[in-house]
């Protein structure tokens, strides 16, 4: 494999609340992502998906580990570098699309500003040149020139998400990091945004980190999937294999609870009932039907298992889910 476009090693993120014990949001997170490749981060709320995404873009302080993003000329840059110049160059390579485009766009500024700001700051564009680039950026996400002067509240949810995509792509990054970008949208609008994302990836050889709790969406968008549980990757592999023949019982429970177009058997989701997952062993052990004494005593490492890697002492046979 050639040098990865994005590489993360041993990322550790801790949240330190003002009161109470510190929370380990992400631990030992590794990722190698090639140009044009799309990886999904899946898991329940609180599993560490968003922490991983933010850490990859340099927007969350790391307690340990490192991130490197490679530019077209081969430099490997740290988005959390102490040197501001390196940090700026690295972050230009990392486009970030947050979950709620409504909350991340300035309500008092027109759409032109959302795109123009980054182009003016990083590229020094002004006047007619800037206006032309803003218009081209909006056209690339399927918005008309008339949208330039609109304010966020004048846009539909799907249009706001397109603006957020255009903003993330304004500096032509090599990597796009998307956090639940379709979960607030209607199904039909969601399909439009996913089609747009696929088109942008093809046109630009984008590497994509795609955070989502919707496994159906993940199946259409990504080639590789990482399943997170309590801040750790518990299964990793080709998306199709992970979703069709999960080896970790937690992944299997997630797949079985995923809403489908046919009724799920009652109780399919019960395996995911929340439990306090602290302790020395596997975080899923307290609710896992396959757990053995060892699972509760020590944490299984991620290890190769057929088509995938799984962190489990008592893995599933991988014979497929109903």
């Amino acid at each position: 494999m050639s040098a990865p476009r994005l590489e993360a090693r041993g990322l550790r993120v801790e949240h330190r609340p003002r009161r109470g014990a510190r929370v380990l949001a992400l631990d030992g997170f590794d990722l190698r992502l090639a140009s044009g490749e799309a990886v999904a981060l899946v898991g329940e709320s609180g599993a560490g998906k968003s922490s991983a995404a933010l850490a990859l873009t340099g927007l969350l302080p790391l307690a340990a580990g490192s991130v490197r993003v490679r530019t077209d000329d081969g430099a490997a840059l740290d988005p959390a570098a102490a040197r501001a110049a390196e940090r700026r160059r690295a972050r230009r390579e990392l486009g970030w699309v947050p979950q709620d485009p409504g909350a991340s766009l300035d309500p008092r500024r027109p759409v032109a500003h959302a795109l123009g700001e980054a182009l003016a700051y990083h590229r020094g564009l002004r006047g007619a040149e800037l206006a032309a680039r803003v218009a081209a950026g909006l056209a690339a996400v399927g918005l008309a020139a008339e949208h330039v002067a609109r304010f966020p509240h004048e846009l539909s949810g799907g249009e706001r998400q397109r603006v957020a995509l255009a903003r993330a792509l304004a500096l032509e990054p090599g990597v796009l990091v998307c956090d639940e970008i379709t979960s607030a949208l209607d199904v039909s609008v969601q399909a439009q945004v996913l089609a747009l994302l696929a088109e942008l990836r093809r046109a630009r050889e984008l590497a994509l980190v795609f955070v989502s709790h919707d496994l159906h969406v993940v199946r259409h968008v990504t080639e590789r999937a990482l399943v997170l549980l309590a801040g750790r990757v518990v299964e990793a592999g080709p998306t199709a294999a992970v979703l069709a023949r999960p080896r970790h019982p937690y992944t299997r429970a997630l797949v079985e609870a995923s809403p489908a177009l046919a009724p799920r058997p009652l109780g399919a989701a019960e395996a995911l009932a929340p439990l306090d997952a602290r302790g020395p062993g596997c975080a899923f052990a307290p609710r896992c039907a396959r757990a053995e004494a060892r699972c509760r005593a020590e944490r299984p490492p991620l290890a190769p298992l057929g088509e995938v890697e799984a962190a489990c002492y008592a893995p599933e046979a991988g014979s497929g889910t109903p």
Partner: protein
Amino acid sequence: MSAPLLEVRGLEVEYAGGARAVRGVDLALERGRCLALVGESGSGKSSLALALLRLLPAGARARGRVALEGRDLLALDPRAMDAVRGARVGLVLQESGAALDPLRSVAEQVGEAWRLYEGLGRARAAERAAELLGRVGLPQPGELLGRYPHELSGGQRQRVALAMALARGPALLVADEPTTALDASVQARLLALLRELVEREGLGLLLITHDLAVVAQVSDETAVLYAGRVVERAPTRDLLAAPAHPYSAALLAAHPAHAGAPRPIPGRPPELRALPTGCAFHPRCAAARPECARAEPALAALAPGREVACPYADAGALP
């Protein structure tokens, strides 16, 4: 036989600016059954829910008949309507969990209705609140009573909101996107709970959503809404197996759980103040013919239990 639980006839909702959000909708729902209303943003599904409870904003008008257990809610005086809300019909919204009072404990909020309407004391109300929280699937409800909304997860908050809607034992629950803001696994558990309440306790559930996967988990029957009208009505299983109206088919093909890549529906829902002539869906319909721009088709029987508002829907293609 007693009156049906809910019978809606010719319901119209019009907003002050002239937008017609609901245009002549008929619905019927029995006890122990779930009817789903499906449509995109702007299809009128939330206006319909608010109209049933007479909670439309000032300036909006509802006409027609909304009979709950035989009584026309639209004809009740405001005081009588107050007595119906909560007691006979409960409401849960997408934001209900987020709308809990941040300054009051779970016990106070769940028990409020009993203290207010049944004169229960604080201790007895808390006791009943614990029971009810257990019924909506919250483990260790006793421990939750003293907590405040910020100490709960999103799924727990939504269950507390559901408990509040069920507190006075309503016969009908109107749930508008009750699980949309939740994570997939939390959503799956809440949907299973709703289904259980329908089957075990005979609750009538009117479920409003844009998501056909939600419909598949919970509802017996589904009505597809487009631009304020029902364009198809069918047993849920049949609708998902073979949608008859082109709009229903497009909604299904756009769903990520559907086989193949999700297919976007071209265009966008129409402006309710300037509806297209003829069938409101025809500008976005792949099967549209010139006739579709002329007259708006009425809902017509296609098969037993199935109605569709498209003269070109093919009954032969149904299973």
